[in-house]
């Protein structure tokens, strides 16, 4: 049990910083990016104590969660999720309006990360109201309400059939 826990902790600790950097670096460069890491509250018996998460947005000085803004917290949370996922990767992710607190710049970063990292064994299903995110997807499922039947209905559209609009 101890072994398993430590191997999970070490794996995730290694992954969290590069993922956070990828989510916070300025678009289309490898420059900048914040810093994130995990610390154990009790080195000797880790699974008895807690694990603290620290994330520092680029060019900021505070590393504790309570000082981060709404959007900064969302980015830190997604980095943690993706780092945890990389340990025993589940075949798909379902995200419901995780972009609600993000400005357009950060929405782009999330869209780029998902486009880059999704694949046959890492499927993303994302619910979003922001076109900055959903226009980058491979396919859309449109849901609407059919009032006469008092029911939700679905439509599917494969975006890859349409040329990339400028």
């Amino acid at each position: 049990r101890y072994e398993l826990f430590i191997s999970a902790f070490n794996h995730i600790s290694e992954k969290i910083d590069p993922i956070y950097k990828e989510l916070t670096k300025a678009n289309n460069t490898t420059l900048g990016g914040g810093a994130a890491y995990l610390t154990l509250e009790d080195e000797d018996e880790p699974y008895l104590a807690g694990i603290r998460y620290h994330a520092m947005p680029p060019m900021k000085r505070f590393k504790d969660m309570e000082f981060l803004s709404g959007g900064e917290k969302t980015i830190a949370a997604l980095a943690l999720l993706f780092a945890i996922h990389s340990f025993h990767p589940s075949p798909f992710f379902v995200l419901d309006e995780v972009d609600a607190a993000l400005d357009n710049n950060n929405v782009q970063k999330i869209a780029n990360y998902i486009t880059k990292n999704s694949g046959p064994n890492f499927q993303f299903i994302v619910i979003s109201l922001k076109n900055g995110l959903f226009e980058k997807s491979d396919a859309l499922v449109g849901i609407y309400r059919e009032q006469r039947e008092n029911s939700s209905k679905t439509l599917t559209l494969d975006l890859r059939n349409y040329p990339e609009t400028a």
Partner: protein
Amino acid sequence: GRLVGLELHNFKSYRGTASIGFGSANFTSIIGPNGSGKSNMMDAISFVLGVKSQHLRSNQLKDLIYRGRLLDGDIEQLQDGELDNEDLDSETAYVMAIYEKSDGEILQLKRTIGSRGQSEYRINNKVTSAGEYSNVLKKENILIKARNFLVFQGDVEQIASQSAAELSKLLETVS
């Protein structure tokens, strides 16, 4: 593996049978106006994998069955009676997921709610126990207890500010 498609039958706001396919898309977005049924679709995915009803915005499994009937008399006045009370509530509901394993084998996962609110699990149309069902999913790294691959509406910020103890517990469940 990957999720190939879903079939909902009288599940939440989906009356009758609704199905969607993900095709070969690795990144699918679900879009639509407020109240149209997007989060209900996520609830359908969570439900078919074995997530409990309290994580699906419901008090009991029966709340997940399609309700068309008016809730009580006073609504009739509010809406000046133009809604006919004939669309009765459905008795049962199910969600079926079609999942393709990395080796190409197809799994049909189906979970049904009966009229008395009990739930039944089937894999490739064979009834199985909840425990057996969750073991089959575990082999695919779909960990229902950890739910680390599902982020419900409004929950994302909380993930970053969870307590040290909660984070440790989450790591314990995934390890």
